[in-house]
């Protein structure tokens, strides 16, 4: 028998005339983890959606378990044993864990749903994953990382022989990632073929056996993972050498510009004290649910504050709503760019203009199209946003370019403090570096920068000083020169280890 359980050759796919895949090629053996790499828009997700029946291909051949498949739909793909964990979480938040896991293939007893059996089977899968989760919990009440685990459990419960994971760790904490890797090892041993898409190259070293690289919808190379260094892989992905993954600029630290004193807001923001100087990048590290995002939201006036003082340039300011913060010169680039960062149905230029309408529009309120265009052109040039044109909807941009638009919104104002929440989540290496460069430019211009990031290499690579949070409190502060992953993790789990 063919050792390959999946063979895809000469796959072509276009969307509205734009080629997403051109003669793409892919293969998978049983019992291996195949890393699928490429920049945003390289066609990784499209290729995997074709394999799992979400999209149909325009042309090309595809065989699964040695047999040529016709056009698949999601149901047929499931029956073939192909499961996919999508990048965007696809859960019905009103349904329970068990209901989600069995969605679309509910078990019946006669004509009535057999809830008991489905709950039992869900418990079994969760137990196999060693996850402590009640199958009857409503999914909408779970944290993002738990929802991700439900997705994984769902894929496992159909006894998938081919499991596709698209960025499965983007919302997981390091402990949960370890659990996931343990599960992947377990599945590998059972003969499952796993396709693993990730922008986190560091983690691939632990699990990947082989690697396929795509660029601009085309096949670049395939090979054993261990034969390549990180830098070689990155070069293959972006088509050029990236010498410095975390570019760093040094500039003189100025006077203290921003200070938060005794900030309290809800359970996850307890007694936060922090300060930022001009031209300084302060990183906030911590595990999921440590209260980092909540802290930024409280500072920015999205969540109500119980107590605390915010001092900008030596003056205490009142921030009750985001507009107060923006007016004062404090801006936030939020964690979820699609939900909080962009109006996806508006054009790029409308998005860029949105928070700047106060100075773009005259005193009658009429938007000055000339100023708007100037602003758009300047932003696109400075940020190197790649897109068909400024009038396309923001939703049509790739993740990296969307993020640049979100950042661009704020750069058009002379902000004094810029807060980034997970600025590079789900973004490819090339765009990441561009975003780091932007952040560095801010730093050189004397802006105080606060960055929340779950990726330790990123926090350590870009910040000048790192604050670590655990359970809503600040548990440690480390200068960049002294930072190690172990030190940060020790602070980040301070309360957990004490119990």
């Amino acid at each position, binding site marked *: 028998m063919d050792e390959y359980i999946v063979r895809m050759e000469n796959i072509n796919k276009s969307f509205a005339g734009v080629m997403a895949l051109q003669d793409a090629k892919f293969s998978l053996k049983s019992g291996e983890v195949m890393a699928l790499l490429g920049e945003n828009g390289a066609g990784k997700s499209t290729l995997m959606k074709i394999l799992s029946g979400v999209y149909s291909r325009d042309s090309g051949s595809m065989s699964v378990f040695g047999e040529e498949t016709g056009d698949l739909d999601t149901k047929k793909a499931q029956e073939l044993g192909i499961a996919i964990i999508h990048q965007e979480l696809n859960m*019905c*938040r*009103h349904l*329970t864990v068990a209901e989600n896991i069995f*969605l*679309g*293939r509910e078990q019946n007893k006669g004509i009535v749903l057999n809830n008991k059996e489905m709950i039992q089977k869900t418990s079994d899968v969760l137990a196999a994953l060693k996850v402590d989760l009640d199958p*009857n919990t*409503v999914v909408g009440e779970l944290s993002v990382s738990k929802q991700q685990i439900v997705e994984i459990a769902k894929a496992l419960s159909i006894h998938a022989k081919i499991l596709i994971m698209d960025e499965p760790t983007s919302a997981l904490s390091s402990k949960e990632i370890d659990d996931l890797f343990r599960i992947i090892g377990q599945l590998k041993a059972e003969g499952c073929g796993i396709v693993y898409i990730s922008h986190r190259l560091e983690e691939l070293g632990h699990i990947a056996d082989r690697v396929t690289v795509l660029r601009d919808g085309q096949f670049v190379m395939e090979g054993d993972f261990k034969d390549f260094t990180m830098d070689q892989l990155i070069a293959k992905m972006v088509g050029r050498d990236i010498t410095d993954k975390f570019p760093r600029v040094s500039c003189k630290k100025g006077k203290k510009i921003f200070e938060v004193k005794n900030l309290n807001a809800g*359970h996850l923001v307890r007694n936060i004290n922090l300060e930022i100087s001009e031209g300084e990048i302060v990183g906030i590290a911590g595990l999921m649910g440590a209260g980092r995002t909540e802290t930024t939201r409280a500072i920015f006036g999205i969540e109500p504050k119980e107590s605390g003082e915010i001092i900008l340039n030596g003056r205490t300011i009142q921030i009750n709503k985001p507009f107060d913060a923006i007016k004062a010169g404090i801006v936030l680039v939020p964690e979820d760019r699609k939900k909080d960062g962009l109006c996806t149905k508006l054009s790029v230029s409308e998005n860029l203009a949105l928070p700047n309408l106060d100075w773009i529009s005259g005193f009658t309120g009429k938007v000055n199209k000339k100023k708007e265009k100037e602003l758009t052109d300047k932003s696109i040039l400075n940020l190197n946003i790649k897109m068909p044109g400024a009038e396309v909807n923001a939703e049509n941009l790739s993740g990296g370019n969307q993020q640049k638009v979100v950042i661009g919104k704020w750069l058009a104002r002379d902000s004094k403090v810029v807060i980034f929440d997970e600025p590079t989540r789900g973004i490819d290496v090339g765009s990441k570096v561009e975003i780091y460069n932007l952040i560095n430019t801010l730093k050189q211009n004397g802006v105080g920068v606060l960055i929340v990031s779950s990726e330790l290499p990123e926090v350590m690579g870009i910040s000048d000083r790192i604050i670590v949070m655990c359970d809503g409190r600040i548990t440690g502060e480390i200068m960049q020169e002294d930072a190690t992953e172990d030190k940060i993790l020790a602070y980040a789990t301070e309360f957990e280890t004490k119990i």
Partner: protein
Amino acid sequence: MNAKQSNWINRKFASRGMQSVVSATFGFVLLFIIFSIMSPSFRSMNNIQNLFRQIAPTLIIGIGQGYVLITGNIDLSIGSVVGMSCMTAGTLMNRGMNPVLACLITIILALVVGVLNGTLVAKVNLPSFIATLGTMTLARGLAQLVNNNHNTDFIGNTAQGFRDLLYYGNFLGIYSAVWLAIILWIFFNFLLSKTRTGRHIYAVGSNLDAARLSGVNSFRTILLTYIISAFCACLTGLTLLASAGMGTMDAGGTYEMYAVAACVIGGISTLGGSGILPGVIAGAGIWGILQNGLQFVGAPVALRNIIIGTIVILAVVLDIVTRTNSKKTRRLLKKQ
């Protein structure tokens, strides 16, 4: 933490909207007591029987609207389908057609409207508000067309049996319209809460993409809800025909709004994904008791409308407030 089982019941009902059902039922009982104290004739056996007969059409049409709302859509055409059914059946009966056959033809016609709605929404991907706004006007036009823009004559001469059965008929002291509502409710509640179809309806309303990617046939699911909705509207129309004794072109005028109100008061979210059918009973009950009771305590029509409108808004606000609060507290409790 308690035992898993009780936890399950709590969670399940919390998610699907059991809280609103409990509060709406409480509201119904409270209103019943208030009106009973204020007006002796309200609490007469005669009126109570009547009250339930008034609630029945709202309940029937509310069941259908509930199905559509749970998928995250809305059906504005049902009021016109009521009128269309009322006129079609009335006209056919007046022309001497066998009432059973007349009803069957009427039901088929209504189902065509349901299929049209479902196709426009789920296949052509029109926003349900727009699509059903169109079919609402269309169905009203048909209601006017069937008898040449005239209301029908009294049907008592040709189809007295139909009236006797559906309007005067009663069994165990309960009018047949109420029985019809009860039977429909039991059937559709079973379908929604116990079967795969029902589960798919919640899934589609909760997250259409996720449901599709899990292999749920979203077109068929949404189509079915519109067919059920049109079917329920048709039966409401037949009930109205029986009670009025003649087909009127503007029958069921604002019934689509009655249906939405009954659902929303009963905790079926217009955003989709949540709500249970017991809520429609409570919602239709509150709706009916206000109409009936306010009349008995002598409130003029204008005041009645103002009171009922206010109560619908309050019900939604209360629902949103309690829902967000309870979620927040629960999350906090979990963290601690």
